């Protein structure tokens, strides 16, 4: 337990170890620790940013979805209107066609009726003359009476 030169030896050893520690141990360790601290801070900031970004993206997505829905709605409405219009048009066309056909049929009928009337008139004239001949029992002068008979036939 004497105080001796060990004191000096220990002082020198102490100085050497402290110097070594100061030069080669402390700076790289602190560097690593500070770097990690920065990394973690950056990571947290990035995570914050990412969550904000996500929120923005969600909002945007929701907006676009709504827009798309509105557009779809508009398209459907337009289609509905168009279909109604087409049906309307088809109805009108059909009606017109029907009327045209009806008119044609009526014209045909009239024509046929006129024709039949003409024919009947002609036959009635003949019948009337024949009947009159029979009744009169004599030959009526065809030529003298034809004017009268035509007149009669025109009156029928």
């Amino acid at each position, binding site marked *: *337990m*004497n*105080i*001796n*030169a*060990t*004191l*000096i*030896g*220990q*002082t020198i*050893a*102490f*100085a050497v*170890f*402290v110097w*070594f*520690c*100061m030069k*080669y*141990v*402390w700076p*790289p*360790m*602190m*560097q*690593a*620790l500070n*770097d*990690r601290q*920065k*990394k973690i801070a950056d990571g947290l900031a990035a995570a914050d940013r990412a969550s904000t970004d996500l929120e923005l993206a969600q909002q945007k997505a929701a907006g676009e979805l709504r827009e798309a829905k509105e557009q779809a709605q508009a398209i459907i409405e337009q289609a509905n209107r168009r279909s109604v219009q087409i049906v309307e048009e088809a109805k009108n066309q059909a009606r017109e066609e029907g009327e045209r056909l009806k008119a044609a049929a009526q014209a045909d009928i009239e024509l046929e009726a006129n024709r039949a009337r003409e024919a009947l008139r002609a036959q009635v004239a003949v019948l009337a003359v024949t009947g009159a001949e029979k009744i009169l029992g004599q030959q009526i002068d065809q030529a003298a009476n034809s004017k009268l008979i035509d007149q009669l036939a025109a009156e029928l």
Partner: protein
Amino acid sequence: MASENPTATEYIVHHLQNLTYGKLPEGFERYDGSIVTEPTWTIAHGAAEAKAMGFWAIHLDSMFWSILLGAIFVILFRSVAKKATSGVPGGLQNAIETVIEMVDGSVKDTFHGKSGLIAPLALTIFVWVFLMNLMDLVPVDWIPGLSALLGIPYMKVVPSTDPNITLGMSLSVFLLVIFYSIKIKGIGGFVGELTLHPFNSPNKVVQAILVPFNFLLEFVTLVAKPISLGLRLFGNMYAGELLFILIALIGYLQLPLHFGWAVFHILVITLQAYIFMTLTIVYLSMAHEDH
């Protein structure tokens, strides 16, 4: 071993004797009765011879273990520092970082100046003193017994039970305190701090009379710092070591006792290393404070 079957006293004294290398003066009677005919460099046998060697002797065991443990500290920390990554740290790096952050936190709590020295100094002190104290947990007969087989008569394995070691460190700290006091405050500031407090007076004559008293008080305060710093560590570790030796004397009953004391001693070891470090930081930050 001093003898084949040592008595309890011999056993204890033997365990507390450092392996001292020094010069024996002429005419000194050695342990075996022979007389030294001319001054001889040799290894001391027993306390009387170590004492006769005077100041210029060295404790080979303390120096060996102290430097070995210091080397373990720097090699371990350097190997981690070289591979230190700012990514995910491995197990060893994690452990070392924990120590470094603890030391860094202590330094930042106490010391508010800017110095590249204090934090590494505190780290060195903490880890080195911790390792030196840790040698106390090696059962007291293992290494001395092994070295006795190798022909080394004495082996004290706990460097911090040698006052030379603890005072060597505390005096280094003291030199740094004085260096920084003068560097920060100037010679005048440092002398003023020693002589103008705690008693002062606006009257110049009265102040001059008070100077010696102030100096006496402040000088004792100043010198008490390194002495108490070194002796506190030494005293704690020496007492712990002595208890281990005493426990080792009592036969088989020593096992539970030894275990109990060792568990308690883990606390002492860490605490003393921490106290030494913290006080170093405190003293150095006081040296940096300008009044």
